[in-house]
Structure formats: C-alpha cells, structure tokens
C-alpha cells in the first residue's frame, strides 16, 4: 500500500523563503512534467464532475453485450454484466475523487487544529502528540475493518478511519512549522512590541504553515484514494451499487486474461490520478527544499 505520510515531510528550514501557494504554483508551471500532471488531474476532475452529461448510466447493462472488447460503441469495452466500461471508469472517478476530497478536507481541518493547539500550548503538546503518534502508526485498513464491524460498511466508516490515521501527519507538519518559526527573531521582535500569543500565531506563524500543509494534504489525498480503492476491492468500502475503481478491479479478477479491458482502464485511471498528484507533490517539495537541487 503506498504509504500515507512520510514522516520526514520537508523540515521547514529558511521559512522566510517559503513561497506562498501562488508563488509555488507559478514555479510549478515552469516544469513540463508537472504541467502534464496537473492537466491530467484537472481533466479527471472535470470528467468526474460532468459524468452525467458525458457518459451513460454506469449501472445499466445489456446482457447480450457482455465482455465486449473496446470498440467505437464502448470505448472501454463492457464488463461481465454488460455494463459500459467508460461509464464505470468515469463514475468511479467521481467516487474516488469525492472520497479523497472529503477525507483530505476533514484531515486538514482536524490536523491543523490539533497542530495549532500543540504548537501553542505546551501541555496540549505533551499529551496530544503522544496519542497522535500512537494513532498514526496503526494500520489503516485494520482500523477501517474494525470500525466497519461497529458502524457497518459505507462511506462514513471509510472516511472516519482514514481521517483518524491521517490527521497526525498534518498535525505534525503544522506543529513543527510552528516550532521552527517561533524560534525566529521576528517572533521575539513581535513579542517585545507587545503582540499577544494569538496574534503572533495567526499573523506570523500560521501563514508559513500554508504551503507545507497543502503539500501534506495532497499526500493525504493520494493515500485516501488508494486506501478507498483497496477497501472497495475487498468489499469493505463503498456500497456495491456505487461504481468505484476498486470494485471494478475486483470484478475483473475472474477475467484477468480473458477481458483485459476490465482491469486495464480502471487501473490506469487510478494510477494516473494518483501519479499526477504525486508528480505535483514531488515538484513542490523540490521547489520548497533548495537542497534537493542536484543539477
């Protein structure tokens, strides 16, 4: 399983040079590979959003059209029930991207809140970070399955288990940025000018957290997409009537060599989506960490 959040998210050195999101975007656009990746991802998002407009019903099937290879009528072929491959891939994008986005959002909000609390209050830091460390090393799928036993399968269970395991990553990034920045002379200057704790935090420390948190959020997104597809694959994720890439791949298991289009297209869509985000993440890290420049 491609992993969650690398613990060594770029240690924020020289925060004074940390580009804000807009600056980062500008620098990203200069790299051709990154532009391609962003374009692919945007395409995927647009396709998912416009799904009802551009493809047919992913659940409707024509029994006589089972297992047809790709053709002008069915660009991605049909599956074992006769459902249109393209529709299932596009609607699958909807499901995966939605789960990814929701998880990402919740994780970021909770993680940032915890990170802020830990960065500002020593006692919170001591207690909470220990718990957080304990949680982040727990296998996410085991947690998802255990929660499923209580809450039943479905979107909520999946999202909750992922948020629980992924929010520590964000919290740590916020906390370590806060710790580094609070050592800077400008904080001392602000304090001696009479600035209060909250003001210092939100005016000085917090803005520096934006870019690292964005990068971490992107990492969470990729992890969420991968975990959700794995859970759907083993039948512990989204409900079976919701088309998802994981479920489509599970259905292709019996037809690996006979109907390659059943696993190939959902697989490529999944890999492509995650890869495009990973490319952007890598490029961002290169830009943020000047030591990486090895040309």
């Amino acid at each position, binding site marked *: *399983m*491609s*992993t*969650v959040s*690398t*613990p*060594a998210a770029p240690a924020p050195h020289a925060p004074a040079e940390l580009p804000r999101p807009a600056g980062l975007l500008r620098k990203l656009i200069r790299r051709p590979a990154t532009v391609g990746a962003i374009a692919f991802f945007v395409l995927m998002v647009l396709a998912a959003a416009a799904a009802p407009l551009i493809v047919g019903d992913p659940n409707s099937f024509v029994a006589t059209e089972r297992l047809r290879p790709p053709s002008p009528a069915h660009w991605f072929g049909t599956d074992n029930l006769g459902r249109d491959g393209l529709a299932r891939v596009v609607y699958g994008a909807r499901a995966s991207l939605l789960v990814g986005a929701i998880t990402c959002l919740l994780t970021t909000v909770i993680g940032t809140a915890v990170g802020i609390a830990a960065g500002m209050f020593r006692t919170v830091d001591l207690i909470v*970070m*220990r*718990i957080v*460390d*304990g*949680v982040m*090393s*727990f*296998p*996410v*799928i*085991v*947690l998802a*399955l*255990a929660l*499923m*036993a*209580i*809450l039943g399968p479905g979107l909520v269970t999946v999202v909750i288990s992922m948020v629980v395991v992924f929010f520590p990553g964000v919290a740590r990034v916020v906390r370590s940025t806060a710790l580094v920045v609070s050592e800077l002379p400008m904080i001392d200057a602000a304090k001696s000018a009479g600035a209060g704790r909250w003001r210092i935090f939100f005016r000085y420390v917090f803005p520096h957290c934006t870019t690292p948190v964005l990068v971490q959020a992107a990492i969470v997104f*990729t992890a969420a997409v*991968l*975990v959700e*597809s*794995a859970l759907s*694959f*083993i039948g*512990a994720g989204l409900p079976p009537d919701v088309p998802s890439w*994981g479920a489509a*791949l599970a259905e*292709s*298991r019996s037809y*690996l*060599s006979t109907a390659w289009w059943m*696993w190939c297209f959902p*697989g490529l869509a*999944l*890999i492509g989506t*995650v*890869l495009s985000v*990973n*490319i952007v993440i*890598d490029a961002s890290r290169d830009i943020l960490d000047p*030591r*990486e420049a*090895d040309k």
Partner: protein
Amino acid sequence: MLSYAFQRVLALLPTVAVPLILVFLLLRLAPGDPAAILLGDQATPEQVAGLRTELGLDQPLIAQFLKFLGDVLTLHLGNSLFLHRPVVEVIPQYAAVTLEIGVLSLIIALVLGVTLGSSASLRRNTRRGRAATALGIVGISVPQFLFALVLILVFAVGAHWFNVGGYVPWSAGAWPHIRSIILPAFALGLGETAFVSRITRGAVLDVMQEPFVTTAKSLGIPLHRINRVHILRLSSLQILTVAGLLSASLISGSAVVESIFGLPGMGRLLLDAVQRRDYQLVQGIVLFTGLVIIVVNLLVDLLYAVVDPRVQLARKIK
C-alpha cells in the same frame, strides 16, 4: 543500552493505550447492547444477562475499563462466535501465516528498495538512475492489489509457474509451501519497494552533500566504498525511521493480499470476522495488531541505537 531500552518502552506506553482504548470503546459505542452483540442472535436472554454481569456492563466506565485491562493482560479475550474456540487460540495460527509473508515482503522491499534508491541517487545523472527515480514515483502510485493482479496474470495465469491462490503449509513440503507464498510476498513487497527506494534516494542525496564525503574522496577512497561504508551507514537511519510506517502498511496490505490469494492469514480472518459480526475475534485481532506495531517500533528504536550510537547519548527530541 538497557536504560535506553527502558526509556523507549516507557515512550511507547501511549502507543499501547490507543488500541486498548479503541477496542474498549468499540463495543460500548456500537448501537445495541454489547453483551447481546457479543453473543449473537442465537443467545438466550439468560446468557445475555450473564455476560452483562460478567463484563460488568452495569458498572461505571472506569471500573469497566479496569476490568477490561485485567482481562487483556490475563489474555481472557473471549471466544470466537463462529469458530467456537477461544480467541487466543485462534489468532496465533493465522498470525503465523501473516507474519511469515510480512517478514518476507519486508525483506524484499528493503533489498530491492535500497538497491533501487541507491541507483536513483548515486547514479542520478545516468539513464539507469533516472529510470530508478521514475520507477519510484510510479511505484507509490500503484495500489498493492494491482501489483497482485498483474503478478497473478503474468506468473500464474500466463506462465503457470504458480497457482492463482491457495495456501500450502510447511507440513506439506518446503517447496510447495514456498511456492504458495512467493507471489503474495512479492505483491506486498513491491508496493513498499517504491516507497523504500524514495526514502533511500532522499537520504543518500542528503548525505552525499556532507563535507565528510569530500574528505573521504581526498584520501583516495574509491567511490563504491564511500557509498557503502560512509554514506549508506547514515542513510540507513532514515530508512529505519520509516520501518515502523512500513510495517503498518504491510499489515494493512496483508488484508487485501490474503483475500486475493486465499491465504489463511490474520487479514482475511479479520475480514471474515467483521462480516460475521464476530466481535470478540475482531477485538482480539485489533489488540494483536497493536501489539505487533509496538514490538516493531521498539525493535526499530533499539536498532537505531545500534546503527547510530549517538542516539543513546542524546535524548530523542520529537
């Protein structure tokens, strides 16, 4: 060394607390009566009432938790509803399978990953190095089950070297047993290989720029020796750091891989238990998983001290 070990155990206590509390709350937060849930639909009211008192469900939460702790420590984890055996009996045999495959895939991931990552960093301006870097980023974008499917397609269906699934225990022969676990081990391991290779690449790139590497060059030490002795020694620290994460990932992945290959491991046991609402078993598995994570983290911390003795001298600052 001993005092360091003791320190590390103390530091891991909060990590122990999390699965414990999770499991405790699991049952009590579920809709319905915990005792009824545990005993399933077939239980009589008397049985349910009996279990209620036994579990102390009428008492305040703290008392319940203490009782629960006591049960855990004395390994009174109840019986599996469907397997009709004590949980503590059921888990070990399934765990053995998972651990065996897990360790094998860890070795695969480390060996392949470090090699790939070294190539990606030390030869980063060559075609081989660039390919290795690209493989790394593509590899982490592929879900484990996809690796499994492709491996099955190529080696089992295509080449007929291996079976598509099914587990053969040691008792049936060494070679058949190995044949049955190689593909699953690779399916798990390849996914992590990419991750390890990226960490290695980053770590080696960091160390390569250090001044002491230049000193080694000034002494005329050949590059391959510098890489092996001077650089990798320090890079391995960063790799160790993610070993804990790696194991969590492997355990997660094993649920999927065991389900694909039909292996009687803990992942599949958990899946079945969840689908059958076998709560005692689920609880036991979650606790066991927590235990494994803690042991692994402890091992990693101890290895840390061996590889970098400086760690024992200074307190680790989180």
